[in-house]
């Protein structure tokens, strides 16, 4: 196999300039309609989906269950053909290949599964060797490559263990090594961390991110968890009922979610929220002598500035911080603060105007007595 002759490391520059690199995956007006047996109404799983994924990019595709994620996975790896439109992976129009050519083409896409899908009858090393055996690689070469991959995912010691003797995180490391065995251009992760606990999820995501940096593989993360996307994706695509409703840089999607579905995902992942005690007392109308609850989102160049202190000085208003957090998304700080300020129309207007002047967004969540 020609692809196996490539060195393990690809130039790092590929990963650093994803926007300019040529697309590895190109979905052109892809529509998939299923005609279920027994029922008359056809189901549109994906409608007119167009998306380019550049080489070395980590793209998160997020959607609720039933949004069309599974169909999209099977279209990208060529196990399903679109009703109309084209799926192009690494320059090959996957949607037009005959089955035998499609099988060869699938080797340029490595898949990582939610439930690992490892063979219980094979050791860690044996599982990683499977795609190489299928591709007809010589035995000696398989051994070298398997050792290399075990090292890459940090499982050299566990090479002769069976899946039943490995933890969930270790199993997924085997899954990732197996997916990378044939040196694919694309690593397609289908809910790869959804069966893992949060700590292991973090480790697996860091591993995926590190692998992208080291070998320049393009990563597609299909998930229903915004936290996964937030952790490592460069770019996000939001699927909703078969439609691609929003795409953009991860940070932009978080800072300025456009679609209602995106907002729901962002809200679900925000760790900053009002305590229930306060939420139940919240009123829509201002209350004289009461307080107003404001959410301020810090992003952009002023995210790390001491905004509240300055605002307090310039307006003479005393802020009461209810909840606050600063996190890093795509390497950029993103702050989320909930404050309470004594109600007066003028005060609130002044605060919102000054925040807007700094390029920060704020939102009145409600009023309390």
């Amino acid at each position, binding site marked *: 196999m020609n692809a196996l002759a490539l060195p393990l490391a690809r130039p790092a520059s590929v990963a650093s300039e994803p926007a300019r690199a040529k697309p590895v995956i190109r979905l052109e007006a892809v529509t998939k309609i299923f005609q279920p047996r027994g029922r008359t109404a056809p189901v549109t799983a994906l409608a007119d989906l167009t998306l380019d994924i550049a080489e070395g990019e980590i793209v998160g595709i997020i959607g609720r269950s039933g949004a069309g994620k599974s169909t999209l996975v099977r279209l990208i790896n060529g196990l399903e053909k679109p009703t109309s439109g084209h799926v192009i992976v690494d320059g090959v129009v996957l949607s037009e290949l005959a089955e035998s050519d499609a099988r060869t083409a*699938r080797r340029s896409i490595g*898949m990582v*599964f939610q439930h690992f899908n490892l063979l219980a*009858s094979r050791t860690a090393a044996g599982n990683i060797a499977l*795609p190489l055996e299928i591709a007809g690689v010589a035995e000696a070469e398989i051994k070298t490559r398997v050792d290399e991959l075990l090292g890459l995912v940090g499982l050299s010691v566990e090479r002769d263990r069976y899946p039943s003797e490995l933890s969930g995180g270790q199993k997924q490391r085997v899954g990732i090594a197996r997916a990378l065995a044939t040196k694919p251009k694309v690593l397609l992760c289908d809910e790869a961390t959804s069966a893992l606990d949060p700590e292991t999820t973090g480790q697996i995501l860091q591993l995926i991110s590190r692998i992208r940096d080291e070998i320049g593989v393009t990563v597609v993360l299909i998930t229903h968890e915004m936290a996964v996307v937030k952790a490592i994706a460069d770019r996000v695509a939001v699927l909703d009922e078969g439609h691609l409703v929003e795409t953009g840089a991860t940070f932009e999607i978080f800072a300025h979610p456009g679609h209602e579905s995106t907002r729901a995902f962002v809200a679900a992942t925000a760790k900053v929220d009002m305590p229930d005690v306060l939420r139940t007392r919240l009123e829509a109308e201002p209350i004289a002598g009461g307080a107003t609850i404001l959410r301020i989102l810090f992003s952009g160049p002023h995210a790390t500035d001491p905004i509240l202190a300055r605002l307090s000085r310039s307006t003479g208003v005393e802020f009461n911080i209810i909840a606050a957090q600063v996190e890093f998304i795509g390497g950029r700080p993103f702050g989320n603060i909930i404050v309470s300020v004594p109600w007066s129309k003028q005060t609130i207007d002044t605060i919102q105007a000054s925040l807007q002047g700094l390029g920060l967004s704020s939102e009145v969540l409600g009023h309390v007595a």
Partner: protein
Amino acid sequence: MSPEIVYQLIFATGQTLYMVGVSALLGTLFGLPLGAFLATSKSGEILAAPAANAVIGAVVNATRSTPFIILVVAIIPFTRLIAGTSIGTSAAIVPLTIASAPFIARIVESSIREVDPGLIEAARAMGATPMQIVRKVLIPEALSSITLGLTLAVVSLISYSAMVGAVGGGGLGDLGIRYGYQRFMPDVMLVVVVSLIALVQSVQSAGDALARKLNRRARHG
């Protein structure tokens, strides 16, 4: 018991082991691919051939529903074609094989159907051909379960082999009928039954041990 009877017992044990051993081997040789085909050829499966699946399934069912003793006599012309004769221990292997192959096929089929469909999906995503999926994924993953099923098939064969005395097949069962029953020798009958119990018991224990060794699913640490 006279030395003559002891000799007969040893000889009959040898005949049983020979008939059961060879027909189990041949039955597996035919049954394994047949079972693998049945497990993967329904519509929408990796080797989809629904018509062939239905035909082979029907033949398998027909063979399995024919009482063994009827099968033995019904296929006498076929036995003569294969073995050159329809009488004797070697000739008895033909009906024993024909009875065990469909049984083994169904066992293999159900074992393969228990394999996690996610593994088929993973292998397909790797670009595996249907044959590669059968050889490298389905059979190895189902092997422990197949081994248990084969044990069951061998035990059934031991029981079937008692009936081939009808065509001069010999063996322990035949000895029990001829000496123990027809000649009123209860001690011979007892020895035959105890020998058969010991044989079945050791086959079962060996099969269980092998299946346990092959099963990597539940082992920890």
